[in-house]
């Protein structure tokens, strides 16, 4: 900062901390008072504060994916509704996908903050509601147009005088299956926004609206400066990558994603020209979803200490042609947009691997991997819905293995505890463990995938898989192999029917649906892996002795749990073949 500026660096730091604390307080209020497992336990929500110019200034520590969409949604929704139509205590609700929104389950509540009848800022909370109506429980499924996916909410006044607007509330609630949970979750969003309003007002009351506005301007400039100086360190050039998803959920035709990354003095530009046209199937990412993915990748490239606000987002540059799977238009289905967006994140990272190989992991799970189900709960005599996302293997890095079973990149939701799930829903989890031998072998290996089996006693549930990766596992890098693909299996211990990655099935009593997610890709040739690491993997049954011998070319004595050095040397002196990486 130059010495001419009137900004006091101390007050700056104080205001910046206060804004972040306020969003954390909002998140805490939301999480602790929510009803659905997806929000209260899995943390599938985010909170943020906007200034009077509708620029995002602070956000809670939660789902990276949401934040890039909040900054798109808020100004557009406010503009559409008209600020002049709002007053103190109001809140507007919105989930419109194509104008800054994402999929329908992610519903945003926006509340203006007033000081002496003048709007001085806005607070917003976005939560993934477990059900918004539509063609299948949890509102996920392979639909052909957005109208089948659930209730579409344009910006409407949902809260007046700090409480529900009864008419709208009842209308929305009438469309959804899990009414009790949804009502509780909406109350939690109001609690979060009320908390944010109180805190933002207190800050302004203490410092003065003009002073806070001035410091927010500076905070945004400061963030922009730091982001630019960090990005300037990246090597210049043009980098390309492509990737495909298995299917669109309606046809088996793979969905192609193309990234052309240009790094020059202006920063980074991600151009997605060449990606497939949008489909009449649930794999379309909205502009805001794609924008979130680019923002995530950029954020990973800079000092984690740089704040995330409008000054950071200013540096997010992308070309996403309208009408494609990376920027769909009405009435394209959007429920699986996050699947596409997460895969696009992988393709962007793959392009960056050529620029900064030491910083980029091999392919990760690269999918949200939704599991959604519902039906009539025979024990509680009510309709229920449940949604969760399943972890998978993370990609290996230049100096370390990929962690096993994690929720990568833009998703950071927690696993639903089995005991809590069984207590609240008529389902039994019968297996929850790592998938052995699923890693992408490499000098550093990918993480293992995860298996989770669901059994439905005493009722006939409807089950939707909205995922990917059953045809191609995550890519390896620099001689590392790709990870094993995912599998979705009906009744694994009897008929063992393979299910596609995007499907809704009507189950019979006691049917079992089994998820086995993919392993992460490997980094570097597996025959260069330290034999002691291979020994540890074999001992821990992550990797079988035959896999160790055939792929890693390490001979393990399973009696003494030692590496047979001579046999290993012989194995490794032979020329090893390499498998093809995933496209």
């Amino acid at each position, binding site marked *: 900062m130059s010495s001419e500026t009137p900004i006091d660096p101390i007050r700056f730091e104080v205001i910046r901390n206060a804004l972040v604390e306020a969003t*954390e307080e909002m998140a805490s209020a939301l999480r602790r008072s929510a009803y659905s497992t997806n929000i209260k336990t899995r943390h599938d929500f985010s909170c943020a504060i906007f200034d009077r110019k509708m620029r995002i200034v602070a956000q809670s520590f939660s789902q990276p994916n949401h934040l890039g969409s909040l900054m798109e949604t808020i100004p557009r929704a406010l503009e559409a509704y008209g600020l002049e139509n709002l007053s103190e205590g109001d809140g507007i609700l919105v989930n419109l996908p194509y104008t800054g929104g994402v999929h329908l389950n992610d519903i945003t509540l926006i509340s203006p903050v007033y000081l002496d009848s003048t709007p001085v800022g806005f607070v917003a909370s976005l939560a993934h509601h477990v059900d918004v109506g539509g063609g299948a429980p949890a509102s996920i499924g392979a639909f052909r147009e957005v109208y089948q996916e659930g209730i579409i909410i344009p910006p409407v006044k949902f809260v007046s005088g700090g409480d529900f607007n009864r008419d709208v509330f009842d209308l929305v609630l009438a469309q959804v299956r899990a009414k009790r949970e949804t009502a509780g979750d909406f109350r939690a969003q109001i609690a979060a926004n*009320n908390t944010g309003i109180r805190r933002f007002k207190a800050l302004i009351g203490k410092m003065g609206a003009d002073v806070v506005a001035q410091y927010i301007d500076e905070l945004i400039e400061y963030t922009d400066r730091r982001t630019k100086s960090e990005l300037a360190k990246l090597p210049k050039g043009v980098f390309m990558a492509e990737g495909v998803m298995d299917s669109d959920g309606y046809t088996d035709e793979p969905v192609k994603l193309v990234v052309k990354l240009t790094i020059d003095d202006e920063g980074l530009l991600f151009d997605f020209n060449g990606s497939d046209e949008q489909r009449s199937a649930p794999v379309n990412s909205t502009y805001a979803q794609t924008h979130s993915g680019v923002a995530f990748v950029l954020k990973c490239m800079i000092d984690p200490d740089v704040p995330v606000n409008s000054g950071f987002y200013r540096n997010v540059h992308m070309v996403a042609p309208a009408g494609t799977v990376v920027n769909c238009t009405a009435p394209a289905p959007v429920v699986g947009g996050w699947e596409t967006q997460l895969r696009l994140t992988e393709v962007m990272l793959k392009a960056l691997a050529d620029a900064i190989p030491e910083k980029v992991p091999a392919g990760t799970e690269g999918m949200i991997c939704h599991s959604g189900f519902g039906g009539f709960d025979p024990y509680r005599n009510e309709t229920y819905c449940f949604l969760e996302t399943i972890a998978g293997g993370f990609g290996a890095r230049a100096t370390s293995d990929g962690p096993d079973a994690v929720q990568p990149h833009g998703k950071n939701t927690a696993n639903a505890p089995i005991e809590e799930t069984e207590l609240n829903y008529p389902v039994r989890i019968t297996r929850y463990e*790592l998938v052995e031998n699923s890693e992408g072998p490499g000098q550093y290996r990918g993480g293992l995938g995860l298996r989770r089996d669901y059994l439905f006693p005493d009722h006939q549930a409807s089950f939707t898989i909205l995922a990917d990766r059953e045809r191609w596992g995550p890519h390896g890098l620099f001689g590392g192999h790709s990870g094993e693909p995912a599998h979705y299996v009906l009744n694994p211990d009897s008929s063992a029917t393979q299910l596609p990655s995007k499907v809704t099935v009507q189950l019979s009593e006691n049917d079992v649906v089994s998820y086995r997610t993919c392993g992460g890709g490997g980094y570097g040739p597996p025959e260069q892996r330290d034999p002691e690491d291979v020994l540890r993997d074999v001992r821990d049954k992550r990797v079988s002795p035959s896999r160790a011998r055939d792929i890693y070319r390490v001979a393990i004595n399973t009696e003494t749990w030692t590496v047979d050095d001579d046999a290993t040397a012989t194995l490794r002196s032979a020329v090893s073949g390499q498998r093809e990486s995933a496209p």
Partner: protein
Amino acid sequence: MNEQYRLGIDIGGTFTDGILLNETTGEIRTGKVPSTPADPSDGFLHVLRRMLDDGQAEPDAVKYVVHGTTVATNAIIEGNLAKTAFITTEGFRDLLEIQTGIRPTLYDLQFQKLKPLVPRYLCFGVPERLDYRGEVLVSLDEDAVQSVVRDLREEGVESIAVCLLHSYINPEHERRIGEIIATELPSALCSLSSEVAPEFREYFRASTTVINAAIRPVVSNYLGNIQARVRRSGVGGEMLVMQSNGGVLTFEAAMDRPVFMVESGPAAGVIAASQLGETLGHENVISFDMGGTTAKVGLIENGSPRVTKDYEVGGTAATTEHGSRGSGYPIRTPVIDLVEIGAGGGSIAWIDSGGILRVGPRSAGADPGPVCYGQGGTEPTITDANLVLGRISPDYFLGGEMRLDVDAARRAINERCAGPLGMDADEVALGIVEIANSAMVGALRRVSVQRGYDPREFVLVAFGGAGPVHANRLAAELEMPTVLVPMSPGTTSAMGLLVTDIKHDYSVALIQRADQIDIGVANTQFQRMRSEGRMALSREGVADEDTRFIKQADMRYVGQSYELTVPLQEEDLDAAALDEILAQFHQEHERSYGFKAEEEPVEFVALRLSAVGVIPKPQLPKVSPGDHTTTNAIKKTRPVYFAETDGRVDCPIYNRYKLGSGDDITGPAIIEEVDSTTVIHPGYRAAVDEFGNLFLTRI
């Protein structure tokens, strides 16, 4: 005269502190020796002997020895763990590997997952299964258990953790596995999740049980060794250890459940503040303990410190604030709810790449320490800033044992911060203090506002070497009306060891809707826990008249996952009491989350009972009345920089030991004592009470 003593010994990373109370006279002595990490019992015995000699106390006159220790935490952080195995329900052996799925850092592509404390090859699933009501779906396959135990014997496993699905509601299968282990592998210690932490959500219960199992041999050896040496020294009094919940346990009980003592150290400070508040008639207190590397804040409501079960140990930030963010191993035993932040005297000030002044979280620690210590530190710290501002004395640090170098501190601030910012050193020193204060205000907000408490209804009790330097400003910021600075703030935390009660916590899962609850069953459960507690206390020699029972229930709206703990009356429950409890729940929900939903059904989740053996509290020694002029107590004046005065003002420096009860000092003023300095800002005053405590209030 037949005098009796109570001895507290706290082993920290650098020093082992002792505190001796003469119960007959109320006299308190403190002492400090270097810690001896190679064998901590050396330092323990060293300080024990010194305290007894100084107090001229006979070893057999010591009634209690209370020990605060970080041995459990250190064992986890340093990986000094037993060879431990994990047994669970078939199909779930990877619970410890899978964890919560949450990443501690969002944008770090190089992140590492928490390393499980048990390697995968020592994790086993055995066939058995309960449903969510605890009913048996699959019986326990005892042959499979036998076969696992045989493997464990071959592997030379020392300690075993058992956590089966839904065992919190039906412990039968776990108990049977425990019996088989006891028969087949008696050399191994066995920890059952249904005994260690009967709480639902399997990963958290498993993690708690595994930690208990993994640290048990280390902690048992440690406590056993100390106990033996203390006995040999002739001290025969009860040996107690501080728990994370703020109560104490006997050494024997702690050897079985070491996971209850992971936060043994910090709890003592909160207990001390709570006790002090109670003695002085302040039931609502926020404790603020600021030392060399961190500041710790806790909240005490109606005389009871807030306790949480949402805790992680061994993570990057050991704080209850970030809940399950996945950087540490979760534990679900009661822990005093503390927010700890990296702001202590040694926290370093720096300029970030965007040209902004920042403070912490990096600390210069004790070595090299702040620049002004002259021990090689080159980066300016909070202590350096306070010194430059004139708030602490260069020649009365630790009572004058160490001279502080003001010029070096100023030079460092100039070179590292003021120069690059184009500001002068005084302004930047003030900025460093204010930024640290804003972080501490954040911590105070987190324990109060964020949990639904209004800080204006609380007294701020400030202690630790640096606490009283900053407290006035923090209270002003949060409009807290009163700051209480006890005598000798550097030893307040140790005092906590001497005033804490014996405490056993019991809980039982009871998931039932409030409108369907079987009151008889609830009462039976309470009676069972009560007699268990009474037995434990009487084994520890607590008389019936010193026994108290605290009953609580965890409740929530049906469908929620986070419970609120509601206090219950001591008598048996009946329908009227139930209505009262419900009303209290709604009220508590509104306070915590800003709304209540009286039309929504409420359910019980768990019943809790604490059996407390009350230990008589020491009398605080009184000070003589002052002469109301306070001029005798002024050592000198010194120019001190305050924001309120826009620069330096000549400020009287008081000797705390010369202040008497009834004395009243108007700020700006500085009050010095050997182990701390109290700063009184302009617009505030400090009144001295009969025990020598300072009460800071706005004029």
